[in-house]
C-alpha cells in the first residue's frame, strides 16, 4: 500500500469516539490530582504477543490499550498518557509501515506526549520525521501528540528540531504539570548516518536548567521526565536511578530502554524530596499508572483507591 492510500485507509476508519482530556483552563483550585499512564519500548507490538513468548504470551495489543486508557480517563478525569520511547522496530508492522502506523495509532489512543528512544532513529532522521508528519496529518479528533527531549541538539536537523520541545506544560484543575524528556547516547546504539544533524548532550547537564525553569519560572506543581536512558547502568552511563541525585526537583521519571519490568516505582531520595522511577517492561504488555495529589495550602490527600479496570 502506498503512503497516500494507507493514510486514506486510516482516515476513513477514524471515528470520533474519544476526545481526550486536554489542559483544563480556569481558576486554580486549592489542590489537584493527576494520573500518569505510561508505556515504554512498545517496539511496534501493535498486536498482542502470540503463544510461545513465555510470561508475556497473550499480553499487549494497541486495541486493548486504547480501551483501558479510555476507561481510565472516564473514571479518573485528569490523566496524561505518556511514552518513554522506542516505539519503533520489532515486528513486521515496522518493516512495512516505517513507524507511521505506530505514531498514528498512538494519536488515536490519545497519547499526550512521547519522547525518542535510540530505535526511533533506526530508519534515519528523515523517516522519523515522515512518521511524525503522518501522525500529524491523520484526520482524527485527537490532537497530534508532541515529543519532548532536552538533550538532543537538533540544529543540523531542523525538520526534527521543530517537532521536539525541550519541555511543555499541561494544566489541570489545581495542578500544573511540567513534562520534559532525555535520550540515551547514540554511540554504539545508533549508526551515525541515522542521527545525522542531531547531537547528543549530557542528560544531567541538559535537564538541570530545564527542571529549574519548570520549578522557578513556570511554577509547576509536578515535574515529570520521560527518560530513555535505562533503569540502571551501574555507573557506566547516565541512568534513571542516578538521575534524581544529579538533577533534584523531579517528581517522576517514566523510564525506558532497559526493558525493565518493575512492579512498583523505585523511590529515590534527592535534595528536594523524592523521585519515583518507574518502567513497565516492553512491547506494550503493561500500562504503568502513577497517581499524584498535590496541595497548594490545603491538607494533602492521597488519591483514589485501586480500581478494577478489566472489561
Amino acid at each position, binding site marked *: 500500500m502506498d503512503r497516500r492510500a494507507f493514510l486514506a*485507509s486510516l482516515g476513513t*476508519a477514524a*471515528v470520533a469516539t*474519544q476526545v481526550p482530556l486536554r489542559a483544563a483552563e480556569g481558576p486554580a483550585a486549592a489542590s489537584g490530582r493527576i494520573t500518569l499512564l505510561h508505556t515504554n519500548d512498545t517496539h511496534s*507490538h*501493535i*498486536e*498482542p504477543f502470540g503463544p510461545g*513468548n513465555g510470561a508475556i504470551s*497473550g*499480553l*499487549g*495489543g*494497541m*486495541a*486493548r490499550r486504547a*480501551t*483501558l486508557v479510555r476507561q481510565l480517563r472516564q473514571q479518573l478525569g485528569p490523566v496524561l498518557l505518556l511514552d518513554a520511547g*522506542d516505539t*519503533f522496530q*520489532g*515486528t*513486521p*508492522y515496522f518493516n*512495512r*509501515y516505517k513507524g507511521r502506523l505506530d505514531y*498514528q*495509532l498512538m494519536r*488515536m*489512543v490519545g497519547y499526550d506526549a512521547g519522547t525518542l528512544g*535510540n*530505535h526511533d532513529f*533506526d530508519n534515519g532522521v528523515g523517516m522519523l520525521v515522515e512518521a511524525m508528519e503522518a501522525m500529524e496529518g491523520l484526520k482524527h479528533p485527537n490532537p497530534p501528540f508532541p515529543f519532548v527531549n532536552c538533550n538532543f541538539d537538533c540544529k543540523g536537523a531542523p525538520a526534527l528540531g521543530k517537532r521536539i520541545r525541550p519541555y511543555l506544560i499541561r494544566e489541570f484543575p489545581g495542578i500544573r504539570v511540567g513534562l520534559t524528556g532525555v535520550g540515551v547516547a547514540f554511540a*554504539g546504539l545508533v*549508526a551515525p548516518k541515522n542521527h545525522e544533524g542531531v547531537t547528543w548532550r549530557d542528560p544531567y547537564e541538559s535537564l538541570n536548567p530545564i527542571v529549574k525553569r519548570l520549578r522557578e519560572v513556570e511554577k509547576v*506543581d*509536578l515535574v515529570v521526565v520521560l527518560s530513555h536512558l535505562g533503569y540502571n547502568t551501574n555507573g557506566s552511563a547516565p541512568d534513571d536511578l542516578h538521575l534524581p541525585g544529579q538533577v533534584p526537583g523531579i*517528581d517522576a521519571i517514566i523510564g525506558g530502554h532497559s526493558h525493565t519490568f518493575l*512492579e*512498583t516505582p523505585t523511590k529515590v531520595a534527592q535534595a528536594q524530596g*523524592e523521585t*519515583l522511577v518507574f518502567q*513497565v517492561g516492553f*512491547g*506494550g504488555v*503493561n*500500562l*504503568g*499508572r*502513577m*497517581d*499524584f*495529589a498535590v496541595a*497548594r*495550602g490545603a*491538607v*494533602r490527600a492521597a*488519591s483514589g483507591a485501586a480500581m478494577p*479496570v*478489566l472489561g
Partner: protein
Amino acid sequence: MFTLQLKPSSSLLLFSLLSFNLVAQPPSSRAEVIPISGAIPDDAEIQKVIAPLAAEIKATFGLPLVGAPQGLFRGRRGEENLLGYWVADVMRKAAQGVIGAPVRFAITNAGGLRANLRPGQLKVADIFELMPFENEMVVIELTGAEIIQVVKEGLVRRGGEPCSGVLAKIEGTPELATLTVTWEDGSPIDPTATVKVATSDYLFGGGDSIPTLKQGRKPFTTGITLRQMLLDECAVMAKAKRDLLPPAPGRYTVPVPIQEAIRDKKFKL
C-alpha cells in the same frame, strides 16, 4: 477515596499550620502496573484500523522468498545443525552491518529453531515457522577465553549449539577428552583478545544454560528480531537470484561415543 476526617476547628488549625509551608509540600502518590491482558476488550476504532493491516501482513506469509533446492535441516542424531549454522552466519553478517565492525563469532540455540526448511521455494511463513519468537539480536564483547568457554558449555549441554566463526573438535574418549577450538580458518584464538559476538537476547539473558554469555560486555541491543534478519537475508538472496544452500559441515567434530555420553548427560569436559 482517602478523606481526612477532622472537626472544622481542627481542620482550620491544621490548614493554617500547613499553609506556612505550602511550596515545600511534596506531592503524595500511589502507583501500579496494569497488565494489558485478554480480559480487556479491543477498542473497536483501533481494531478497525489494525484488522485489514494485520490481514495484509498475514497475506504476505504466502509470498515466495527464495529457492532452497536442498532445504536446510537441523540434523538428526549425530548430524550437524546446518540450518543453525546458516542462522548463525546470518546473525554474524547482520551484526557486522549494524555495528560497522568485525564480528568474529555468533551463536544461537538449536532449541529456538522450531522447524526445518523443506526443499523447494521458501515462503515468508516458513521463516515464521522456523522462528516464531520475537527474540532480537544482541552484540556483546567477549574475550577469546570466554568464547571457548561458551562453545564448551554448548557442547556439554547440547552437543554443540549452532555457531559461526569457529571450529570445535573433541578428541579422546568420554572419560578422557580434549577440546580444541580455533577460528574458522584454523588459526588459534587468543584467550586475552576481546572480540564482538552476535547472539540473541534470550541467550544473553541466561537462557538455555550458556552462563558465560551472560558475562558479555557492552551489549548492543540491535532491536532487529532474528526472524526479520532471516527474512531480510532471503530477500537479498532472491534479489541476487541466488538459491539458499546449506553451509558446509565441519564446525563441530565429536566422536560418536562422546556424542552418546553427551546425550546421556554423562559427559564432562
